[in-house]
């Protein structure tokens, strides 16, 4: 039997290596976005705050993750409410706001039930309101592949707006602020 030539072995090896690398990458991505086999480990997250030009800018932070997506979401939102560490960034939430509960439905829409203090944003014009909403939405969509959209509740109830402008009574998705 004729032995395969050296170049052929080389090509087969390269293809096998690439397929293997893709498979490993895929498995890691699937596990990362999975609701199950969720590991409580140190996680690097990106939180969106407002920069000096009024645009949303990510700040990296490390958190001690919990054993479920919903618990991690709560930690993530708490970090967002705390505000930025960087001096050139501004937080978007009233400081006393807290997340009462989080639920995920079959359409991967996460329901976030906030305390009523989220409504106390005295400086909130349309832009301020947009900054608050999309700092939250962009942060969650960036860090959790399990989430496709976000809905905001206040004290367990649906609300039309947070500050009298934007309609939040719908699933919200990511937006870059212009």
């Amino acid at each position, binding site marked *: 039997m004729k032995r395969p030539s050296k170049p052929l072995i080389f090509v087969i090896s390269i293809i096998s290596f690439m397929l293997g690398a893709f498979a490993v990458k895929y498995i890691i991505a699937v596990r990362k976005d999975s609701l199950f086999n969720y590991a409580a480990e140190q996680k690097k997250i990106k939180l969106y705050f*407002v*920069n*000096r*030009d*009024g645009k949303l800018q990510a700040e990296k932070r490390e958190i001690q993750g919990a054993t479920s997506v919903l618990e991690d979401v709560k930690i993530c939102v708490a970090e967002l409410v705390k505000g930025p560490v960087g001096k050139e960034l*501004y*937080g*978007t939430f009233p400081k006393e706001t807290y997340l009462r509960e989080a639920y995920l*439905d079959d*359409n991967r*829409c996460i329901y976030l039930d906030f305390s009523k203090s989220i409504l106390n944003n*005295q*400086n*909130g*014009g*349309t*832009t*301020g309101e*947009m*900054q608050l909403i999309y700092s939250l939405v962009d942060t969650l969509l960036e860090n959790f592949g399990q989430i496709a*959209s976000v809905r905001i509740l206040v004290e367990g109830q649906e609300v*039309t*707006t947070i500050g*009298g*402008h*934007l*309609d939040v*009574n*719908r*699933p*919200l*998705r*990511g*937006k*870059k602020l*212009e």
Partner: protein
Amino acid sequence: MGKIKLSCLLFLAAGLLAQEPAQKPAGAEQAALPVKVIKVVIDPGHGGKDGGAVGSNGTREKDIVFEIANLLAKKLVDAPEQRFKAILTRAEDKFITLEDRISFANQYEGDLFISLHANSSESNRDSGFEVYYNSIATDDSAIELAKRENAGAVEKKDSLPADSMFVLWDLAQNEFQKESMEFADKIQAGVESSFTKHVAEGKTQSLRNRGVKQASFAVLRGVRMPAVLVESAYLSNFNDETNLRSPEFKEKLVSGLFEAINNMAKKFDKQMEGAK
């Protein structure tokens, strides 16, 4: 019998008299027709317990927009040939729900709806005016998809079940979307032109034009007429707040808004002529 005959004659005469105007020459009838009166619903944002945004010098959004709304209403009512009727959704410093504002505008059967606001941002560098109209596509992904669908790049698909009721609700109001966009463009051009003239006259007050944008506003949802929301300037910006307190600045802003409304009225006239 004689009474019946008399009644019949009177009935016939009344019928002939009633037909008379329709038999007038077409030219004479056209000249007699008044120009369509445009009903403008002006919505000063916030009010009462809801003060809206507050500037660093204590300027409250609800007060500023109420002043601008009244100036605009006066300018419209004083326009030649009683071309406009203006009505405010709130006549005093009172809290009115967004639903009541929408319902009021629809009951009044306005031709145009303009909601007036003053903006605020977490960054005090943000400044300028912007005009919004409601859009089905509000998030980046939806806007991108809508653009591609319009360009024929992708096949139109049904939305996710969770979103379907919201999309249906928006589609019901989509009838006025094109005109709302046009109204927003005219406001942007009108205000820009008003302030360009102002600066050319040697005045230092200027207003950054941030353009026309789309977002999902609660107060524009369900309004059955072309509707826009104007963010006049930023109360969180020192210069803008100072400007908003100035009567001259407000006058220029109102001139720009009036020009846009007047241009929309001309467009309605053309539409009516085209329909004849």
